[in-house]
Every structure is written in C-alpha cells, then in structure tokens.
C-alpha cells in the first residue's frame, strides 16, 4: 500500500512515539529564534520528561481536536519539525494549522512549504474542512512568504499583539478556503 497520502516531494508526515517527539521539542526549543517565531508565550525551557507527559496525554484523548504530525525528510528520513491542526472546529469545518521546522539547516529550502501542502491536502480531502487558518508574526517574513506560496491569503492584522525587547509588533491572520485550494492543487499537480 502506498503512503502517498502523507507524502510530499521533499518530506512525509509521520507520527512519533512521545519520547522521540519530546526529545526533539526539548532540543528545538533551546533555539530562542525558533521559539520566538513559533509562540507568543515567553520562552520556556521544558524538560523532555515533562513534554513526554503532554504528548502521552494527547494519545489518550478520544476525540482529537488537535492532530500532530512529525515532518521527516524523504532523502534521509531525518526528523526536522512538526505540523499540527490545532483547535479543529467540526461545526465550522475550520482549524488553525501550526508548523515549526526545528532544524535550522532545513530553513528556506522548501521543506516547510512541502509539508504544508501535504497538510492542506489532508485537511481538505480527508477531514473535509471548509477552510484552514493560521496566525504568523510580522517578524517572520520567511513564514509569510511560504504560506502565500501555499495559497493562504492575508485576512487581517492584530495590532501590537506582541511585546518583545520593548517593541510592539503585529500578528497576521491568514486563511485558505477549500475552493481556493482546489484550483491551486490542479496547478501544483501539473508542475
């Protein structure tokens, strides 16, 4: 059986044992540049043990509104990041998507965009979502460009959402509708 459903051109989405994921997160979160692009919470260094407990709890939740995948390269099967649907709302058929490429060597090379396209296909064709949403900080132009490439449109700007190093900055809302993704997917498949 082919696992093409979870496979892109550079990466595949996979699932890890809680310990593997926790150790990767504990390693990546020590990169403060990575963490600050990822989260509005103050930087925090949690132990692998504590994060393993959280991932284990996710395993036990019966009806998930949170779906987490690891991102592995096709070439070397290297674990480079994660992607997740967070806050799936089945009534509205909407979810937020979060992505982090923890290994900086794999930034700006198309791995994140590839993983996002696989995730969009999964969300629209398997979960039957109506739209997929995300938020991104204005100081993350790499992320914004990647999301635009994947078809996300800018939907607004939450002013002064972050306070860092004494500076206020905005958080952007982006979204893609199922109908918009349909026509893009046809384009991508031609390439």
């Amino acid at each position, binding site marked *: 059986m082919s696992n093409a459903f979870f496979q892109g051109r550079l990466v595949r989405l996979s699932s890890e044992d809680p310990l593997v994921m926790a150790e990767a997160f504990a390693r990546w979160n020590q990169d403060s540049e990575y963490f600050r692009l990822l989260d509005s919470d103050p930087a925090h260094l949690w132990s692998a043990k504590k994060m393993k407990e959280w991932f284990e709890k996710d395993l036990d939740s019966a009806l998930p509104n949170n779906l987490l995948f690891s991102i592995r390269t096709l070439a070397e099967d290297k674990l480079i990041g994660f992607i997740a649907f967070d806050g799936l709302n089945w*009534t509205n058929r909407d979810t937020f998507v979060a992505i982090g490429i923890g290994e900086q060597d794999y930034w700006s090379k198309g791995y994140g965009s590839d993983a996002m396209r696989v995730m969009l296909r999964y969300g629209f064709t398997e979960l039957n979502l*109506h739209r997929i949403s995300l938020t991104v900080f204005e100081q993350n132009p790499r992320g914004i460009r990647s999301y635009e490439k994947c078809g996300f449109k800018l939907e*607004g700007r939450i002013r002064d959402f972050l*306070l860092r190093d004494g500076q206020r900055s905005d958080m952007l*809302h982006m979204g893609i509708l199922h109908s918009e993704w349909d026509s893009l997917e046809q384009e991508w498949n031609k390439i």
Partner: protein
Amino acid sequence: MDNTNSLYAGRLVRLGPLDHEKDPPVVARWTNDPLFRSVLVDVARPLSVEAVRRLLEKVEKQMEETKNLFHFTLRLKDDNRLVGLARIFWIDFHNGTGVLNLGIGEASDRRHGFGSDALDLLVRFAFNDLNLHRLSAWTGADNLPFIHMAEKSGFEIEARRREAVFHNGRYWDMLHLGLLRTQSEKKQ
C-alpha cells in the same frame, strides 16, 4: 456622580459576581435564545438549570486556577436584576492582551444601552486595572448590534476570517475587532 464604586459601576449597569443560587435559572432561560450562544457555549443549545449551575461553577473554578480569566455578571444598578454575562479571557499578562465577550440575555433588555455601558466598564477595567495594552473581541459578521456597539467604543475591525463560522444554514465571516489602550485613552 457616584465615585464610591466606579470601578464596577457604570451609568445603568454594574459588574457583579456570580450568584450560584439565583443566577442559574435565569441564565438557563437565556440559553433558549440562539443569539446568546457565544457567551457560554460554542453551539446554540438550550441548557437545563443544573447544567448551567455546573457550567458557572466551572467558570469560577477556572477563574481561580488559571488567573487569566475575569468573569462578571451584569446587573442593573436600579434593582440589581441580572441582565447579562461578560468576561475577559485568554489574558496574556506578558504581552498585555486579552479577549472580551459579553451578552445581554433577554431580547427585551437589548437596545437599552446596557451592553454599551458594560463594554465601557470592561474596557476601563482591562486598561486601568489589569494593565492590558490591547483588547480583542470576535464575532460573526451577522452580529451587527455587537459590531456597532464595539465600534462606538473605539474598536476597529482588524481581521476578517472569511467564511470561518457556520450558523443559520450558511458560512459567515468571523470578524476580529481590536482596541488599543493608547486609542482608548485619547477617546476618553
């Protein structure tokens, strides 16, 4: 003007605590109105008095444990009658942000300025006492009374999440409104 209790008292309403004895039957009645959906539950459904009693106890417990939620009842200054619920939630003290939500329960109590009065109290509380820098409020694009009320208090539409919410048989845009403390101060 009554300055003795001005933190919680507006022109028409006051912010009050829950009354776990008397409030549940009133709030349970409100849940029969789908317009009231957003304040307690995500999807419109009528709740029994017992369900509301437990929900409100959970809210107060959450307030005690998480410290990032402030939940109020809205009561008329005249006779202390419960007319609505309000909360500031998802408070992030580190960035100085929070989200505001309020609802007037009975249709006959709407359009009397109670909500508007309560909104101004909550804004003042958030900026002057919680030391927040900005407030958000989210609502479906069909909720014109709330949008107009929020705009009157200085909120601006910051984001329009297209077709992000489904009710009454169709998708509606989800509006994210925002108010900055710096703007709110200028207005006062």
